[in-house]
C-alpha cells in the first residue's frame, strides 16, 4: 500500500481529515525548503505538496508565480527539488510527499529518469498541473508502475465522464479545485464545495482533497467537514514571502498559520 493511501486510511479510521500544505521548493531560497517541510509536519501536516518551480506557471495566481520566480532566481531545478526530498527523508520516513508542478521540467529530465530518481528520493506522488487524463496515457501508467501515485485535478466544470477518467488513471487522492480561476483566488462557497465533493464521491471511492480559497482556520475547518483533505497553498506561500528576510520569524509564522488550521479542523 502506498504511503499516501495508508496515511489517508489511518486518518479516516480516526475520523480526521488530512491537512495538506503546499510550498514552492526553493522559495525563498533552496536552503530553507527542508526546514520548512519539517516545520509543516510539526504543525500537523499529514501530506506535503512540494511545488516544483516553473518559468511559466500558467494555472497559478500572482502569489505562486512570484514564489516560482524567487526559487528560479536561486536556480532551483527539478533535480535540486528531488535532492530536498532526499534530505527530508533522512529524518522523516512517515509523511508522504507529493511533487506538484508542470510537465516541461519533467519532460526535460525525461519521464523515465525522473520516475526512478523520484522513487529513489522518497517521493510518493506526482501532480502535473498541465497533464490532464487525456494526455497522460504514456506518463501516468509509467509513474504508477513505479509505485508513485498520480494525482489529477477536478474542477467545478469537470464532467462526470472526465471525473471517472481521472479516477481511473489517477491514484492516491483527487484534488478538487474549489474555485474557478487561478491559485490564490478569493471567496469560497462551502455549500457549493460540498455539493461537488459528494458528486465526485458518488463516482469513485478515492479520497477527495479540496484546494483553492483556503486561507485561515475558519475556511480550513469548513472544508474539513465536507472533504477528506484540506489543501492550503497561497496563504502559506504568502506567509513565507512576507517573512522571507527573517528565517526564524518565517518558520514561526508558517507554524502559527498551519497549527491554527490543524486545531480548528480537529475541534
Amino acid at each position, binding site marked *: 500500500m502506498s504511503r499516501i493511501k495508508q496515511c489517508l486510511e489511518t486518518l479516516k479510521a480516526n475520523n480526521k481529515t488530512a491537512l495538506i500544505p503546499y510550498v514552492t521548493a526553493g522559495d525563498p531560497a533552496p536552503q530553507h525548503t527542508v526546514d520548512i517541510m519539517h516545520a509543516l509536519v510539526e504543525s500537523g501536516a499529514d501530506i506535503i505538496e512540494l511545488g516544483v518551480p*516553473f518559468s*511559466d506557471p*500558467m*494555472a497559478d495566481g*500572482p502569489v505562486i508565480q512570484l514564489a516560482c520566480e524567487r526559487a528560479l532566481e536561486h536556480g532551483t531545478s527539478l533535480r535540486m527539488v528531488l535532492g530536498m526530498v532526499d534530505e527530508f527523508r533522512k529524518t522523516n520516513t512517515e509523511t508522504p510527499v507529493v511533487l506538484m508542478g508542470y510537465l516541461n*521540467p519533467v*519532460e526535460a529530465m525525461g519521464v523515465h529518469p525522473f520516475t526512478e530518481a523520484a522513487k529513489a528520493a522518497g517521493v510518493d506522488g506526482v501532480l502535473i498541473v498541465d*497533464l490532464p487524463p487525456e494526455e497522460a496515457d504514456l506518463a501516468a501508467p509509467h509513474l504508477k508502475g513505479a509505485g508513485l501515485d498520480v494525482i489529477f485535478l477536478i474542477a467545478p466544470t469537470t464532467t462526470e465522464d472526465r471525473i471517472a477518467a481521472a479516477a481511473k488513471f489517477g491514484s492516491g487522492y483527487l484534488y478538487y*479545485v474549489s474555485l*474557478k480561476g487561478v491559485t490564490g483566488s478569493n471567496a469560497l462557497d462551502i455549500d457549493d464545495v460540498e455539493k461537488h465533493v459528494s458528486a465526485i464521491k458518488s463516482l469513485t471511492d478515492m479520497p477527495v482533497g479540496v484546494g483553492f480559497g483556503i486561507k485561515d482556520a475558519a475556511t480550513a475547518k469548513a472544508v474539513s467537514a465536507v472533504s477528506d483533505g484540506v489543501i492550503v497553498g497561497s496563504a502559506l506561500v504568502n506567509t513565507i514571502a512576507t517573512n522571507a528576510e527573517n528565517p526564524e520569524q518565517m518558520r514561526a509564522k508558517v507554524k502559527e498559520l498551519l497549527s491554527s488550521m490543524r486545531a480548528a479542523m480537529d475541534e
Partner: protein
Amino acid sequence: MRYIVSTRFDAETLANIPDHRGHFGHYGGRFVSETLMSSLLELEQHYEKLRIDPKFQEEFDADLADYVGRPSPLYFAERLTRQVGGAKIYLKREDLNHTGAHKVNNTIGQALLAKYLGKPRIIAETGAGQHGVATATVAARLGLKCVVYMGEEDVHRQSLNVYRMKLLGAEVRPVTSGTKTLKDAMNEALRDWVTYVDDTFYIIGTVAGPHPYPKLVREFQSIIGREARLQCMEKEGRLPDALVACVGGGSNAIGLFYPFIADEQIKMYGVEAGGLGLETGQHAAPLCAGRPGVLHGNRTYLMEDENGQISATHSISAGLDYPGVGPEHAWLKDIKRADYVSATDEEALRAFHTLTRVEGIMPALESSHAVAYAMKLAKTMDKDQIIIVNLSGRGDKDIHTVAKLDGIEF
C-alpha cells in the same frame, strides 16, 4: 510516435491532421490545467459545428471581402527580382489588409465565433501589437468589451500600437511577470480566461496553444494560401516552386503553406528570428535551435534551458519574439515537408531597407525576415522559377525601431 510515410498527403490524411485529440503526429494536444478543459471542449464542440455551417462561412467570407478587403493581391516584385537575379519573387500582400497585417483574418473568424457563442467579452495576448490591434478592431466593430494583455517590454517597444488599441476602445494590460514579453502575456490571458470563462472568449493570435486553437487559426488563415494558389495560376499558369514565410508562432506561414501541403514538389521555407545569430543563443528560433517540450497547452519545439525552464528570447521584431512555435510546424519539420531556416536581425533590417527602396513597399520587421531569406533563395534558383513570399504585415509600426537603429529619435 506515428508518422505517415507512404500516402503522406492524401485528402484523408490531411483531414486527420490534427486528430481528434489535436495531435499533429507527436505534437500539439491539450496540455492544460483541468480548470480550462471544459472551455476548450465547449469551444471545440461549437467550432466543429460552425465550420460546416454555411451561414457562418458566408458571414466570414463577406467580412473578409468587405471589411478586410480581400483578396489581397499577389504582386510580382519585378525590380527586386531583377536586382537579386534568379527566381521570380511574388509578394502575397497581407500588408494591404485592414489593420495592416494577416492577423485580422483570424480575429474576424474568432470574433464571429464569440458572437455565435454569445460571449460579450473578448481577451487577447499580443507581442508586436498587431494581433492586439486586430482584436481591438473587431471588438469595436461588434461592440464587444476587449482586454489585451501585452508584456511590459513590448508596451514600450510598440507604443504606437498600444495607443491604437486604446483609441479602438480596448483596455491594454501590461504584464510584468517573467520576461515581460509575449509568452508572459499569453500566461496572463490564460489566467484571465480561466477566471472569467463564463462571459469571455479568448482570441489566440497564432497557431499555438491548446487544441482546437492551432486548427481553427489555421483554417481562418489558410485563405492566404488558397488565394495565392488561384492567383499564381492566373498570372503564371502554374503553381509556384517555393513558398517563404516568417515564423514566430507561425500563423501567417501555416496560412500560406496549408493549401499547398499535398503538392510535395513545392518547397516550403519557414524563416525564424535568428536574432544576433543562432550561435549567440540570442534569438527566437526554436525549430532551428530548440528541442521538443510542452508550453501553453501544446507539445512543440521550445527554447528552454537544460532544466526545462523556458528561455528568454531575442528578436528585433516583437512579433517573432516567442520561445515556442505552432505544433503543426514542429510536425512539418520532423516529417521534412517544410524547411525551417533563420534570418538575423541584421539580415532582416537590410531586407527592410531593400524592399522599401526597390519596390516602395515597407514591410513589417517580421515579414522582413521572410524577404531576407527569399532574396538568398532566389539567387540559387532559375529565372523561370517562382517564389511566393508572404508579406504578412506593413512596416509602419516599426519605423521607430528602424529610426533608432539609424540614430534618429523623433
